[in-house]
């Protein structure tokens, strides 16, 4: 590889128009140099993923010119791209769960000894790459047993194993803890130093500033600007990304939280396999208060919520809503109360993707007088109300009858938030309310939650995103292995590091807590 070619990748005037007429890219220019970590940023729907899919041969370009090392290419399939030294780490992991780490890494590019696979020399090579870039894996472990971070390492190793020199990572940190993110970045820096070109798709500005050498901003399918990271600032990138300044955050108004709205007492929950996932948990939330539960995913969050909303039965303990014991109430009883629930998986639980926005709006309130008369739905009223909500919540959609599944993640999430908040809830349970959502939507949803709180709603916020917990909560519960290891008032003295310590190794903190009590 000669060094006189400056741009490893050059994409000029790229257009991608899907058969259904959706314009994903309309005039994108993108260049990346050898040994560079190049961030590709933009909001959801800005066209970053499409651009990279075209580059990787997963989609065919409509128009434009792609050059790799100065040579014009037109990849018809990922196979072509891989052969030309490209690799992609997808957002959804492309792994075979029952295969071992080594089998997954070698998949499609197995080493052969006569007709059979030569697993031993595969493993040798994997160990060597893994050591070189600090990507620790256990080659014989089946992939389904791995943590999310380890799965990602397997993906990266596969790309390196396939001799890629240009590596595309699609939102790699969306699923990682802060510590895992640090490790990933350390490995990426090693690769860049070694001459690899790394393209990082992201919408987290902090990461762009932390790791990239250059940044290209996309908006509405066009390149807005390519900048050197050292010559820019987070504010500028944000402004370029969303085309305006962020609105000032709505502040939490000081209010005396008095009336107890929600209380959980000595809660124990077994998951469906019979493992104790929530251990003796107790907390309460007053009106006009946000109680945030911080924790790495899989520490009992979903079991706690499922037991509250009636998907699981708690093995012991009680739940009170406005002084009333609602332990073990069915989901439909629960839904009749003025309680809003934003589920963590918007596609599975939050919405019905094939149904229209209007249908999704009324999905929990078919029974109310407002929307039905006798046996029939009052479609006119439903559509009126939906139009109103779409306007109020700034949802970008082709009218209220468009299927929810046709919208971007951020807009789907807004539909759910609009539905739950339009109930004027006294209690709001929000689980990962902004996961995988673009900045503008995050800003909007956060402001809506604060607005509700200021109006006197009790909010239970469950999130793995520490900045979200710290930005919204009045009090923070640190969750580790099904236990609230500490509950702390959210004031200026709380740091991300402190919470991180609790939620990563709560056990060591256990003794301190007992000492305090």
């Amino acid at each position, binding site marked *: 590889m000669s060094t006189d070619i400056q741009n490893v990748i050059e994409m000029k005037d790229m257009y991608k128009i899907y058969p259904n007429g959706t314009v994903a890219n309309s005039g994108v220019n993108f260049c990346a140099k050898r040994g560079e970590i190049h961030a590709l940023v933009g909001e959801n729907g800005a066209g970053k993923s499409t651009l990279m899919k075209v580059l990787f041969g997963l989609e065919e370009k409509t128009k434009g010119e792609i050059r790799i090392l100065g040579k014009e290419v037109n990849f018809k*399939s*990922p*196979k072509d791209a*891989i052969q030309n030294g490209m690799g*992609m780490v*997808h957002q*959804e*992991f*492309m*792994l*075979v*769960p*029952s*295969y071992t780490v080594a*089998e*997954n890494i*070698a*998949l*499609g*590019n*197995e080493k*052969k000894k006569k*007709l*059979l*696979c030569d697993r031993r020399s595969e493993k040798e090579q994997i160990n060597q790459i893994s050591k070189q870039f600090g990507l620790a894996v256990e080659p014989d472990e089946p992939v389904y047993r791995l943590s999310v971070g380890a799965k990602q390492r397997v993906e990266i190793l*596969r790309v390196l194993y*396939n001799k890629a020199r240009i590596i595309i990572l699609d939102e790699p940190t969306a699923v990682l803890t802060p510590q895992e993110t640090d490790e990933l970045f350390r490995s990426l820096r090693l690769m860049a130093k070694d001459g690899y070109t790394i393209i990082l798709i992201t919408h987290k500005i902090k990461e762009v500033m932390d790791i990239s050498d250059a940044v290209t901003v996309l908006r509405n399918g066009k390149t807005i600007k390519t900048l050197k990271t050292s010559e820019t600032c987070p504010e500028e990138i944000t402004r370029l990304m969303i085309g305006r300044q962020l609105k000032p955050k709505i502040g939490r108004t000081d209010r005396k939280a008095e009336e107890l709205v929600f209380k959980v007492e000595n809660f124990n929950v077994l998951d*469906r*396999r*019979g*493992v104790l996932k929530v*251990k003796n948990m107790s907390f309460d939330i007053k009106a006009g208060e946000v109680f945030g539960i911080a924790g790495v995913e899989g520490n009992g969050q979903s079991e706690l919520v499922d037991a509250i909303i009636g998907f699981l039965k708690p093995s012991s303990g009680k739940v009170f809503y406005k002084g009333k014991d609602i332990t073990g109430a069915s989901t439909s009883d629960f839904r009749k109360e003025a309680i809003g629930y934003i589920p963590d998986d918007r596609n599975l639980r939050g919405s019905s993707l094939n149904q229209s926005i209007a249908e999704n709006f009324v999905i929990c309130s078919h029974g109310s007088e407002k929307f039905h008369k006798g046996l029939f739905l009052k479609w006119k009223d439903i559509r009126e109300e939906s139009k109103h909500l779409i306007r109020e919540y700034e949802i970008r959609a082709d009218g209220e009858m468009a299927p929810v599944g046709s919208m971007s993640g951020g807009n789907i999430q807004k539909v759910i938030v609009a539905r739950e908040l339009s109930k004027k809830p006294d209690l709001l349970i929000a689980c990962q309310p902004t996961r995988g959502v673009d900045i503008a939507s995050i800003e909007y949803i956060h402001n809506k939650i604060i607005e509700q709180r200021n109006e006197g709603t009790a909010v239970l916020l469950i999130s793995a995103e520490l900045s979200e917990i710290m930005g919204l909560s009045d009090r923070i519960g640190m969750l580790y*292995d099904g*236990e609230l290891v500490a509950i702390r008032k959210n004031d200026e003295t709380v740091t991300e590091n402190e919470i991180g310590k609790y939620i990563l190794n709560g*056990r060591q903190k*256990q003794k301190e807590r007992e000492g305090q009590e």
Partner: protein
Amino acid sequence: MFRFLFQQVLNLSIFTMVFKLVAPVLLAAIGGLFCGKVGVMNIGLEGAMLVSAFFSIVVNAMTGNWFFGILAGCAASVFICLMLAFFIFKYKAHHIVSGFAINTFASAITVFLLQVFFGSSGSYQPAGVQMIPVVNIPVLENIPVVSLLSGHSFIVWIAFLSVILCSIVFYKTPFGAHLMAVGENVQAARSVGINDLKIKYVAFIICGILCGIGGAFLSTGTTSMFVRDMTAGNGFIALAVISLGNSKPYGVLRGGLIFGFANAIAILIETYPGLTIPSQFIQAIPYIVTILMLSIHTIQNNRKMMGPVKKISGSVNG
């Protein structure tokens, strides 16, 4: 009666019977396993075997050569399997529905051809059929117990060999790794440049060949006649056997043998003189055994899935 059965087991004659009954089921099951590993439950095994049974005996009778018979049967069976694959992968038809359509088609076309060419609506028993040979191993056949290995049809050996080969292909070759990856996570396979469609079609062709051999064995290996719908549920038993074997080659072998034994015992009981039990009951034995085994297997599997998992993190007080 039990003494009679015991005697049969002792003098090993039951094994000859078991192997004969197992071979077609095993072949179809291994074929079905290939389809299963690319993510399709192939309901059409039955139909593929049936057309092979028909065409192999017809060509066999015409040429007087058993090998040509098998080739013709395999060709017909591969054709049926490819047709099914075409419906499923090209036209995105539901695999269960199209599988049943294939079976109905196979049943009807064989009866139709039987009627048109041989003027019979039930069975066809041509002269000049060369039976698939039996392999007698010279020295072994005279040694007790080991003589078990001698005197089986060529196809019986092929059937057992197919299990071993299947296991090697699945777990030791790149093709097998690609094949199972396609079935488990097709996106993953595509992302590393594996042509999933090609692999799916190859799996169906292999399935067609194996079903073809199994079908030919039914009409020219154990008998020398074709009877309408003579596969008699062998294809469906094969599906049950795949499930019994946890979709693993040697598991399939075990499941096949269980079914074979049940079937052999049923036949022996039936032929026992002076029996008062209605024969329909006895004929149902292998199927009842299969259902029972499947139920037990499912319950065990569920227990394994739902049972308490090993805890990874240590105790809280530790």
